[in-house]
């Protein structure tokens, strides 16, 4: 019992510890099942296939942290839109320099995020409503930009992002960028303001905080991260794929929740979402490695997700019945 109690105490202090434990366990199982998985030569490919989900999970986090039922279900369409814009609009028109492409992608993502934030914080739409509509509109926009056929294309630096820059796996850049931005922002008052607003917006407002600005910034930051996720996805698959939007939206939100972030806002962390995404990625990876029939893999993924959240809930004291 004391061991369980100390695990609970740890999880109460560090909500992402459960996701960390789960990721580590799954990683060890993966390596045990297929030792080649851990080979350094394999890292760039593994990280590159992990990067889109990792960034999408981190993109979903700020909106959820900002509280008030905050959630962004337009992350999936935004990242596929960015992906398609690169492949269908930028590359064919000779805009291949990363100094040009990356800022455009980040601007597209952040702009859509800021519009979402504006709808939530200023126009006072419920976040689910605002971002569901954004999901529908951006999804339509992505389909339109994609056109009739699936566009394909890549260029030097996107291939490197999916592979490696010299000895450094390229995906470390796409996964590391959101974390770096977060760490830099933590030096400003913004992150503290975000947790304050997410914890209790009325109290934050009474304390003189500019709640709408903090919320808009949170959604814009999520959009920016979704832009990075779009770049990561584009470099991975080198084609436009509007149909993958829903899948990424749902997996990203599942990652955030698995990472110990409360969907009620104000509690959780970016690292947790990254670890949550890691668990989901490793579950799917494991199912591929052990040659489970693809027919079984969806069911097993669902069962493992349920198992993981229930075990996480049992272990985490704070989430138990206090109602």
């Amino acid at each position: 019992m004391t061991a369980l109690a100390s695990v609970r105490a740890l999880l109460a202090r560090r909500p992402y510890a459960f996701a960390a434990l789960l990721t580590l366990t799954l990683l060890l199982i993966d390596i045990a099942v297929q030792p080649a998985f851990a080979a350094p030569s394999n890292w760039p490919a593994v990280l590159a296939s992990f990067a889109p989900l990792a960034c999408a999970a981190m993109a979903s986090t700020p909106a959820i942290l900002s509280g008030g039922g905050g959630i962004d279900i337009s992350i999936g369409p935004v990242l596929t839109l960015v992906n398609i814009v690169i492949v269908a609009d930028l590359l064919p028109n000779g805009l291949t320099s990363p100094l040009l492409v990356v800022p455009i992608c980040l601007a597209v993502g952040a702009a859509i995020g800021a519009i979402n934030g504006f709808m939530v914080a200023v126009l006072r739409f419920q976040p689910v409503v605002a971002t569901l509509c954004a999901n529908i509109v951006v999804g339509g926009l992505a389909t339109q930009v994609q056109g009739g056929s699936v566009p394909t294309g890549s260029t030097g630096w996107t291939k490197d992002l999916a592979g490696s820059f010299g000895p450094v796996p390229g995906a470390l850049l796409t996964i590391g960028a959101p974390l770096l931005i977060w760490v830099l922002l933590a030096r400003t008052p913004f992150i503290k303001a975000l947790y304050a607003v997410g914890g209790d917006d009325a109290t934050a407002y009474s304390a003189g905080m500019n709640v709408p600005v903090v919320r808009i910034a949170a959604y814009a930051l999520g959009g920016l991260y979704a832009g990075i996720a779009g770049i990561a996805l584009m470099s991975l698959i080198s084609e436009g794929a509007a149909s993958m939007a829903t899948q990424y939206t749902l997996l990203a939100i599942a990652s955030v929740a698995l990472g110990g972030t409360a969907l009620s806002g104000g509690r959780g962390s970016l690292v947790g979402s990254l670890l949550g995404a890691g668990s989901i990625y490793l579950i799917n990876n494991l199912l591929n490695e052990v040659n489970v029939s693809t027919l079984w893999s969806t069911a097993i993924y669902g069962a493992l997700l349920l198992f993981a959240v229930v075990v996480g809930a049992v272990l985490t004291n704070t989430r138990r019945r206090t109602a």
Partner: protein
Amino acid sequence: MSDTALTDTPAAPETAGGRPPLVAQLSDWQRRFPLLQIVALVALYGYGLATIDGFGSHRVLYAILINASLLGLAGAGQTIVVLVGGIDFSIAAFISAGDVVIAELCGTYHWSVPAAAAVALAVGAAGGLVNGLLSFRFKVEPLIVTLGVSALVSGLLLKWINGAATGVTPAWLGDLTAANGTTFGLAIPPVVLIWALVALVIGLVLTRTRAGRHLYLTGVNQQAAKLSLVRVGRTWICAYVASAVLAVCVGILLAGYSGSGNVTVGDPYLFQSLAAVIVGGTMFGGRGDYWRTVLGALVLSVVALLLSAAQLPSAEQQMITGGLILAVVGLYGRERRLRDRI
């Protein structure tokens, strides 16, 4: 006082004070009765009548009604779950489950329809039970639980049929959703009457019975509900079971509509069922009722038909739909100002 659920208290005097009496009166009515939803529906239908030839014909009306019936039934469960304070992302999977189970059992294994329907409904009830139990007992976010159950159900389904549905549904099941169908000699598609009946029952249960009041109370404030001797857990779980069972019923109807089983038939309803609830004006946690979702489903179906009549590419249809939902919901479905919640 930061509890958003208090919004629904009629005629908050401090907001009424700052507005002209007529506006305050109207907004008071809007809180009790879906006025603007009806205005939006009439305006959209009138726009169709004015601009599109033959929009008033029976054929078009029935197309709208059949579409709205399926959407409204899919949104019925979502309404109940949203009212109790949860959300259900497994509706799409249960619709597919109902569809495939009926098509396979009847078409491939030659079961009778009632037996197959019983199996499908049992699958729904069991899945809803898992949804409700896990999210209540362990206090896991319902969004994640329903996503997990959704993957589990559609995965098992996929394995059972080995990737491709082969069954064909009995012909009479298709008559239920046929636009030229008749009910007891009346020239109304049976599915529309089924929907009307279900709407009547759910509407009455929500507003006129103890179970309905327990549902609202649980949605507004679980702690207060528990102290008022409401069995919060049972109410919560029943809401999820009802949602899954209703979704399975939609799946059975869809199997008749398309004539064969299809594991992806429910996918569009993942967000559409939520959109119908939202357009209707039901808000999370005890604000709203099923009549609003009925209006929401009708509004969405009229919009869908208007757009397809305009022969726009599907991408543009999608964008306009999103914008219209936002515009319509903006009329009535917004949160209170932060400064009014302190």
